[in-house]
């Protein structure tokens, strides 16, 4: 039944809405149109639990008059409604106060073309609920059958998202693109000796169906990860080396993204404000933000203000080269934008990463675990990060390392360190970059972290 998202139709809507906004008295305006189509299925213990299928579209408008900005959002594409919404949005500008820095980007900054980043899988539209259900069933079944200690399941979820994005700006840009994304996650449950349940999961995701792991592999790995948690215990409070598995390291990298944002820098709400050109991480660490990688999960041909996407080296061998900026934060910091504006239909532009990648090192990941004693961290929990001070304390689980190998699973502990110290002290970067999501990291090792336990 799926209606295919159509980037060209979205672009026509965006241009139409732009003309209505300008006709209504906006001095400058930009319009984002998103058209998406989702299919999500969930299987639990072999039975379908959810089949969800829907198309959805909306537009977001930013209008400026006299350097005053209003940001509005609607899903009503009826022509009369669009005209009225344009008028009402322009009126709202009167409530804001003039801020010349809030103007749209300069004309010469705008993207001139929309590169094809190979984000659309032609085979995706033909997948139907029955096929996705079959994938999910296969994945879950592989987990359930592989070991009698896998006693239950939180289910297997398969999804396909197809979307089109178009953007039109009176600063001189109009363009659109479309993309697909497929994923499968399997979440088995085991019963532990003390009556506790142990859950774990594994997932695969790709813009192309051909890029997915097969469901059995996902299910078996999910079961392996869950079984490994049986017998989890607390450990005593101590200070030891910590090895972060790529998925936990990815969470650290996501937090780093927040403190290298130009928006946080001009507000001085990051401990890295005014640290450009200085060491903010170990020389082993190089981080790039690269929106133009073909087929990558976070790729975008242009940013949320219509600027061309471009790779930015954020941290080079430990030195902070630049914070990432949208137009407003760049102006606040007295420089050009890095083309890093994100934009959702529901809000104005803000700094956001595209594919934010900590480049893999040369050390085989397994070698990083060769410490006499330490903690191998697989999962982080909670919100214990203060970006202003770098205070960092999170719930964690993983494995205790004894004599270079994983001795037993550990849970219900917290690990704490100052975030600046964490990055600067990294003494190992693995060769196992995990490319499944838009924030990508290999295994990382930190020589000393405080563990609070029992």
């Amino acid at each position, binding site marked *: 039944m799926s209606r295919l998202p159509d980037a060209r139709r979205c672009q026509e809507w965006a241009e139409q809405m732009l003309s209505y906004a300008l006709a209504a008295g906006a001095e400058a305006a930009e319009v984002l149109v998103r058209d998406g189509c989702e299919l999500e299925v969930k299987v639990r213990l072999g039975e379908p639990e959810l089949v969800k299928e829907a198309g959805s579209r909306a537009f977001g408008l930013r209008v400026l008059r006299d350097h005053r900005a209003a*940001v*509005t959002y609607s899903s009503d594409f009826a022509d009369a409604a669009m005209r009225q919404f344009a008028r009402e949005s322009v009126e709202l500008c009167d409530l804001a106060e003039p801020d010349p820095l809030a103007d749209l980007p300069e004309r010469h900054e705008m993207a001139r073309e929309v590169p094809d980043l190979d984000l659309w899988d032609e085979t995706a539209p033909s997948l139907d609920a029955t096929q996705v259900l079959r994938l999910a069933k296969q994945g879950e079944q592989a987990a359930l059958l592989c070991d009698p200690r896998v006693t239950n399941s939180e289910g297997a979820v398969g999804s396909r998202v197809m979307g089109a994005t178009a953007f039109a700006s009176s600063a001189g840009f109009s363009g659109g693109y479309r993309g697909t994304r497929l994923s499968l996650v399997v979440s088995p449950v085991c019963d532990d000796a003390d009556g506790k349940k142990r859950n774990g999961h594994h997932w695969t995701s790709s813009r192309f169906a051909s890029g997915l792991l097969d469901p059995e592999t996902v299910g078996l790995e999910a079961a392996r990860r869950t079984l490994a948690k049986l017998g989890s215990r607390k450990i005593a409070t101590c200070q030891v080396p910590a090895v972060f598995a790529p998925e936990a390291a990815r969470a650290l990298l996501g937090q780093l993204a927040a403190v290298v944002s130009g928006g946080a820098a001009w507000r001085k709400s990051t401990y890295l404000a005014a640290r450009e050109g200085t060491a903010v991480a170990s020389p082993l660490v190089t981080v790039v933000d690269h929106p133009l990688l073909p087929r990558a999960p976070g790729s975008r041909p242009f940013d949320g203000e219509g600027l061309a996407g471009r790779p930015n080296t954020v941290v080079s061998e430990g030195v902070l080269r630049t914070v990432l900026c949208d137009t407003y934060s760049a102006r606040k910091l007295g420089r050009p934008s890095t083309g890093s504006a994100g934009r959702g239909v529901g809000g104005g532009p803000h700094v956001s990463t595209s594919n934010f990648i900590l480049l893999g090192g040369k050390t085989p990941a397994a070698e990083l675990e060769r410490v006499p004693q330490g903690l191998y961290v697989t999962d982080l929990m*909670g919100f214990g990060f*203060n970006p202003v*001070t770098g205070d960092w304390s999170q719930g964690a689980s993983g494995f205790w390392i004894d004599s270079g190998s994983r001795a037993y699973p550990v849970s219900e502990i917290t690990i704490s360190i100052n975030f600046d110290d964490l990055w600067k002290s990294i003494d190992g970067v693995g060769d196992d970059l995990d490319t499944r999501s838009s924030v990508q990291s290999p295994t990382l090792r930190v020589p000393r972290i405080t563990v609070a336990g029992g």
Partner: protein
Amino acid sequence: MSRAFVSVGRPASNPLAGIDAAVAEQLLGEALASGGDYADLYFEFRCGADFVLEEARVRSVGRALVVGLGVRVLRGDATGYAYTEELSSDCMRQAARTAGQIAAANRAVAPVALTPLSSSDRYRLPESSLLRPGLDKVALLRRADAAARACDPRIVRVEASLSEEWREILVFTSDGRLARDEQPMLRLGVHAVAEEGGRRQGGRSGTALRRGLELFALPGHAPEDHGREAARLALEMLHAEEAPAGPMEVVLGPGESGILLHEAVGHGLEADFNRKRTSNYTDQIGKPVASSLCNVVDDATVGHARGTINVDDEGNSGQRNLLIEKGILRGYLQDRISARHFGCAATGNGRRESFRCQPLPRMTNTMLLAGQDAPEDIIRSVKRGVYARHFSGGQVNIANGDFVFSLTESYLIEDGKLTAPLRGVNLIGNGPEVLRQVTMVGHDFKLSEGTWTCGKDGQSVPVGVGTPTVKIACITVGGTRTP
């Protein structure tokens, strides 16, 4: 239109105006045309506005209009779901048929004629804030901003924001229920940053209730109060010390500490996890799961509270549900699917983020009820421990019950007195274990009026939390200072 009277009010025409029982009955019939046990329709119309004041300037004004229909068809425990933002006859019928895909053929149940549910009125307003002039709201933000700045020259940044929402829902079910509700929400938040000698710290204060602008005339809720509180917190934390690490006694202050209940118990009592036997609390009804001092309720009926609902998003009345009585587990939070599974009545906890989402069992206002102890006595009883006052959030793993929550204001307790403020503190524990460690419960119950939002399966819903002062005999404090 002159500037003074620009409001971001509701549109003149209500997009749900044409939706009546006849339309609904036809769509329900369509949804069940290929079989299925049950179907429901969820119409939603939401309009909202937001204002942000930064650097003493209104930076941006926003507005959103959202309308849509979600259609659900159930067959056993399986859900078919579809939605549309376009309320044309064709689009609505298409959504109904798509949701009906889940049904096995040749088992049709005819929808029952609709009867309106008589509903409570737990958040009647003098007037929706959306109908007030925009400048009135800008003025509130200025008051908060000025109050925070006036506190101390070390306050170097203030950001104040206000958002308002009006959500109208219409629920029609194939077993004959018709429910309607109008749910307001008004939120004010202030973030202040203090700086001294190169050190910076932030503090936040805010409130979110189902009220109109009269909210700001309530005691403790003037914009100035929140401006000053955000500034106080930022200043206080400038000199905070590193927190200790390891297990110790912890006293939870009244109000916000209810987040502990939300994480440690609340999620684990959501019936879907128990129906699927993936919660720690599976098969525990009638058994002790907490210290006998603990009485826990989930209460959707508290007037104007953030988590309060007249009806849930499946058309059942919101109510007060006893979850734990003197430490004994009494019940779960049910939605329709789970209530059917357990053979019990719905508890009014079927909630969803929007018409794009299927309902799930969710909390409303989750509270630990008052006990007997004087709060001073509770603090005095602690030799060395941590006093927790403000929290930024928490998270739980439902299956094993492990939770963590992060403190934004806490103090060391030494010899029964609060001493140094602490920074970067987390508490980590296990739900059932930590509730057994509750050894004193204060008589000073307080419902937090902060902006709490609960996430589950990617859906966010507004909730409330509350507790009196509580002593926990042993919980792991995640600080940086090892003994």
